[in-house]
Every structure is written in structure tokens, then in C-alpha cells.
């Protein structure tokens, strides 16, 4: 009986994490596209790209997590010219065409702490977008 309820409760925690991941993935997809659109080979473009990613998490139409209740706060934006080496603070902006946005939020767990001494688990989503000639597209 205890085992049955424990498993059901675990299902609730994990189900919630899947919802949160879907929310974060929507955000990172849009944020990576926004950022990639700003890339133009200059430092100003990099700065605008970083701002463009963050802007979607603020304002009246901000995307949120935990069934649309929590603001997305932990966002990491990095840049690359070859999709292999990612730099958060790039020194040379010229060849950077790829943007990766990672959103990772600590989800407080309710039932899982029965089994483990853990109070939160990190749920993360990542997206990579590429600047194209006229536009930008999601590649991962």
C-alpha cells in the first residue's frame, strides 16, 4: 500500500517535471531564434542577442514555467562558430553564427524526498539556432 502510494506520488513529481521541461523547451527554442536573428558579426550584435533571449522571459507576455507560474530566471546564452566550442563571453564576434540557449530551473520536489534527501531537482532544456542569410533557424 505504502509502496503503491509512493509510486503514484513519484509519478506526480516526475509528471510535473515533464511539463516544466516542455515549457522550458518552448522558451529556449524561441529564445535561441530571437538571439540568432540579432547576430551580425559584431559585439553589439552579441549584446543584442543576449538581450533578445532574455526579453522573452520578461514583460506582460513572458514565458514561464511550473504551469505558467514561475519566471524563467536561469538562462545561459553561449555562442559558437562551429557548434563545438561554445563561449559565453566571446572575444571575437566575427564568425559566430550559432547560439545556444539553456534554461535550467530548480524544481522543488514534493514526494521524491521520501526516497532521497533531496529537495529540488534541476530540469533543463537547451536549443541551438543558426543565423542564416536572411533569417534564423532552429537546428537542435
Amino acid at each position: 500500500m505504502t509502496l503503491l502510494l509512493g509510486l503514484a506520488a513519484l509519478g506526480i513529481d516526475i509528471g510535473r517535471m515533464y511539463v516544466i521541461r516542455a515549457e522550458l523547451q518552448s522558451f529556449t527554442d524561441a529564445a535561441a531564434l530571437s538571439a540568432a536573428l540579432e547576430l551580425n558579426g559584431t559585439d553589439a550584435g552579441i549584446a543584442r542577442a543576449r538581450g533578445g533571449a532574455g526579453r522573452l522571459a520578461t514583460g506582460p507576455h513572458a514565458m514561464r514555467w511550473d504551469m505558467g507560474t514561475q519566471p524563467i530566471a536561469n538562462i545561459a546564452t553561449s555562442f559558437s562558430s562551429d557548434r563545438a566550442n561554445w563561449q559565453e563571453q566571446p572575444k571575437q564576434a566575427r564568425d559566430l553564427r550559432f547560439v545556444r540557449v539553456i534554461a535550467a530551473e530548480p524544481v522543488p520536489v514534493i514526494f521524491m524526498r521520501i526516497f532521497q534527501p533531496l529537495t529540488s531537482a534541476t530540469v533543463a532544456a537547451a536549443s541551438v539556432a543558426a543565423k542564416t542569410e536572411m533569417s534564423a533557424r532552429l537546428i537542435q
Partner: protein
Amino acid sequence: MSRRRAQAGSALIEFAGSLILLAVMFAGIFEIGYSFYAYGVLVTAVRAGARYAALQPRGQPSGAGADPMAQAVRNLVVYGDPAPTDRTKPLIAGLTTEQVELINLPDASTVSLRGFQLDALFLKVKLDGRPTVTFPVTAGAAPGAAPGAGQ
């Protein structure tokens, strides 16, 4: 009356009592599980709607009810298809196209739900302004950059 028969009676009452408790617990688990499932479906649907809207060429400003593009976005969110043949089965029970809000800006499209009530048996979750997804406009994409590239 033998002692065993007397105990059989109390076992029945205990079983009835625990059955109520169990039923309530399972109903609760079902409700929460269904809410998560439904919200996950809605997030994906709203995301698809926003992405679709952001890939359309910018034309007239949004807001007009008869705008065919806006209608296609609403259909996509509610039925999973911009031009559905069957309008009787929304992705989530109770969702209608009037509850889908589309805000088209020159550089971004936002889709969210307005005044939708998620009906999970006893529990009702009011969804007003969530989920919300905004996608930047990439309508100028080259032909190779197809709609919905990535996931």
C-alpha cells in the same frame, strides 16, 4: 454467533471505510496526473501556434476576427491542424478557438489561452494568460529553412 462471524462483519466495515479513502486518493492522483498531461498538451499546442504564426508573412495587423491567418493559428492550437476537417474533437476537452489569443507584432507572434477552464473531474484549473509562447518572426527565412525545423 461465533467469534469468527463477528470478525467477518467488522472486516467488511473496515474494508468499506478504506475503500472510500482509497477512492479519494486515486481520484486525487488522477486529477493531478490529468492536469499535468493536459497542460503539457496545451504548452505544445500553443508553442505550435506561435511558431506557425511567426512563420506567416506579415500582412494586415492582427485583431480582426475574420483574419484567415489568425483563424488558422487558432485551429492549429485547438485541433492540431490549421484547416481541420473534424471540428468536434479539440486536443483537450472544452477548448474552443475563442479562447486562443493571438498577438501579432511586426517582429514576434504571441499565442496564449484566455479564460480556459481545465476540467479535471472535481478540480477546475483556470488558465488565463497561460500557457503563453512568443516566437520571433522568421518569415523571411530562405526556402531551405523550412517551417518547424528543429522540434
